């Protein structure tokens, strides 16, 4: 009997010991919000971009615990606003990356020339806005016009957004994107009707400041919701696109 009860005691001790190893991760989930907008420094309108990896993104460096943190990113919305409500409350260095003069400018040896990134202590909600110089500024000139042959013609004007010669590469592409959703851009368009144009050398630069007229290709547009947008880019590192705002037109 004595032997058996000793076994039971050991068994209970082992079970208790094992149970005590269980921990509940009761650290609260990320619940702070970081929001803001990326503005064109000249016009105060937001810098339009595309959805996904090719668009403007927000870069966070959590400096609370390390001087050399691994960066975290999240993407901007198409209209140049950003909003993330699942961020840990902490100290951050915030900057944005996209088709504009970099917030942190370096020379060709990596030396930082200008650093306009922002350091914030995030608790609950923080609003951080950036004023940047887009590489190209694309404006609608009037509304898209529905032609008798069911194509659509748009007029736009493209100007440089910066005087800094280091960010005035040649204009390489001016594209009219046509899509059946408002998520229109270089990563999502209908290739049958979109009108893409590439320019070699300096030939694209002469179009700057002019009213540019572009008509959809591929014949009559199908009778459905259609969204239009012009994207243009210059030769620069990652060759990101600048855009104008998405416009829709009613099929008559």
């Amino acid at each position, binding site marked *: 009997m004595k032997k058996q009860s000793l076994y039971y005691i050991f068994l209970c001790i082992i079970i208790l010991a094992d149970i005590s190893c269980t921990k509940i991760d009761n650290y609260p989930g990320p619940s702070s919000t970081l929001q803001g907008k990326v503005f064109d420094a000249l016009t105060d309108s937001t810098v339009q971009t595309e959805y996904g990896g090719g668009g403007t993104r927000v870069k966070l460096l959590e400096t609370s615990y390390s001087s050399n943190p691994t960066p975290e990113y999240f993407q901007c919305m198409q209209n140049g606003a950003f909003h993330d409500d699942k961020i840990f409350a902490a100290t951050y260095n915030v900057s944005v990356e996209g088709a504009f003069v970099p917030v942190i400018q370096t020379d060709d*040896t990596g030396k930082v020339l200008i650093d306009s990134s922002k350091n914030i202590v995030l608790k609950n909600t923080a609003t951080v806005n950036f004023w940047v110089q887009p590489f190209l500024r694309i404006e609608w000139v009037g509304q898209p016009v529905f032609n008798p042959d069911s194509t659509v013609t748009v007029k736009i004007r493209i100007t440089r957004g910066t005087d800094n010669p280091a960010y005035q590469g040649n204009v390489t592409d001016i594209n009219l994107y046509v899509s059946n959703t408002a998520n229109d851009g270089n990563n999502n368009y209908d290739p049958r009707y979109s009108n*893409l144009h590439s320019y070699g050398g300096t030939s694209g630069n002469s179009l700057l400041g002019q009213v540019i007229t572009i008509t959809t290709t*591929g014949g009559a547009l199908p009778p459905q919701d259609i969204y239009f947008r012009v994207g243009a880019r210059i030769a620069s590192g990652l060759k990101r696109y600048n855009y104008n705002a998405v416009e829709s037109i009613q099929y008559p």
Partner: protein
Amino acid sequence: MLNFNFLQSNSMKNNNLKYITVILGIFSLAACRNLDIPPKNIVQDADVFSTTAGIQAYMARLYSELPIEDFRYTPERGLNFFWLISPMSAVSGDALSRDQTHAQQENFGNWSWSVWSGCYGVIRDCNYFIETLPKYAKNFTTATVNDWIGEAYFVRGMTYFALAKRFGGVPIVTTVLNYPGETIDQLKIPRASEKATWDQIKSDLDSATLLLPVVNPDDNDGTRANKYVAAAFESRAMLYAGSIAKYNSITLFDAKNNEICGIPSTDANAYFLAAYNAAKMLDGKYSLYMKAWAANNPDAQYQNFVDLFSDPGGPENIFVREYQYPNSVHGYDAYNVPRQLAGPNGYSAEVNPTLNFVDMFDGIPKNPDGTIKTLDANGHYILYKNTMDLFANAEPRLRATVILPGDVFKGQQIQIWRGIYTGPVAGGISPLLPPGSKEQYPTANLVESATANQTPYTLPDGSLMNPAGASGIFTGDQTCAISGFSVRKWLDPNLPTSQVLENHESQTWIEMRYAEVLLNRAEAAFELYLAGQTGADYLDDAFNDINQIRLRAGAVLLTSPGSMTVDTIRIERRKELAFENKTWWDLRRWRILDKEQNGTIYKVLMPFYAAKAGEYFFDARYDERNDVYTFDPRWYYEQIPQSVISKNSNVIQNPGY
């Protein structure tokens, strides 16, 4: 159990003490034996490094893991993986494939062989070999030891090359790292500058060139390195580095201002010169394959170019990877034979060369803008008795690279046509679609077939004809020549259809052949000429190199050095090395892939049979699937796997990821 007995029986205490003493005594005697001996069940250094057979086993592993894009590689599924769908040529735009619908970067998350840890595993094996073999050098002659060390340098240089062309600067490790001998912090090695990484590749391949003999004494069939193999790859690697220095515009600096992506443009000429000198070392050591070649004989020149890829003793083969059934196999033919010759696995026609690719070749009727001419002066289709008539004077190299509609392969005419046009033919046939249209073909006046199960159509003369050729093109089934062409290069003309199986084939992969060395030399020379360098007559050198290639190919020779541009050399390279998994890397290092794949829909050539004329016509159009290829410029530097950064926080991610 024993313990409980002790507690229970006090009366036996004395006896137990005796036993305990004896047992402890026995244990302490046994403890005098030295247990710190090498484990008997693990192969020791002495076992491996003391014998030739041990070294050969070590080498077999190094070479089998050498990261080259061979018959078992696709960007989607990685290195050393059998499944060849989503082939590389359909990512680079030389071909269309039913399983590849867009441009892409290498999809490391899907690779079974991890590119980063795999490469660093090979590098560690090389470092271990270079450090350990000298301790056992007394067993061998000095020449043998040098040869083997040279091979380890060769493999290490090649492996750094595989990393650098994907990621830019990477951590450089040239000694065996030990854990726990070194702390985790010491092992968190940051990325070196991209320049330092390419210089490491140069240094390794230079060491290999210096140490290796002219002939590899262990295997002289091109499967293992010799002096010239190392030099040939140095010409490839240095051309890559020079191109990055000259054409790259994406830069990334670390906190200490090391340029881990990008090389200062002032270094370009030094790299081009290194490529040129390395390529020149092979002068007279290897030569272009000309065994079946005859002047002014297109058929002989065609056969010669076909034979080049299947002759194991060819003088052009510099470095190859051999396969052997059933130990190491691939399935190139199974995936790529034309539809009518499909093997028992049911695959076929995964690689269908685009019209954009075919347009690059000589000997086909062209419009002034260089595109294929299919319309007469009145804008009507030109009619041909047979589909091959359009290609009657095509460059022999084109026929040896691409199966053209109606050409003969394995004794069969490969039938490729898109449909039967039943409309009127009097006065000429107008194009089915407006120029540049991306619409589907109108169904009026057109008989087509959705699959290979065809219903024959009765022609005006009462005879029957299938709406589509036996190898396509079918409207509802992409297991056919969707571009109007099927790939020819590498296919084994003697392989019986019953043997056209996955994991069953063993053609040799030629990773480096003399034609590439000539092209490397021509490109490096031309870049040096453009940069105003005067060390040699670079322009003339480039001219002669290209004309050697063109002569063998049966192409039109260049008339004067002055007529050359950088595109002359690049297009020659694309034609010569197509479907050898090189073009994509070339387009990347020239940094033109984002221009070439910029909302691009590739072009195809659709043959039709005009029933009332009894003749064929061709329609050049955009890929009917409207698949758009857009190369994101950030892909020039691939994304470093997140797991690497998690393990080593000193590794900085490439721009844009």
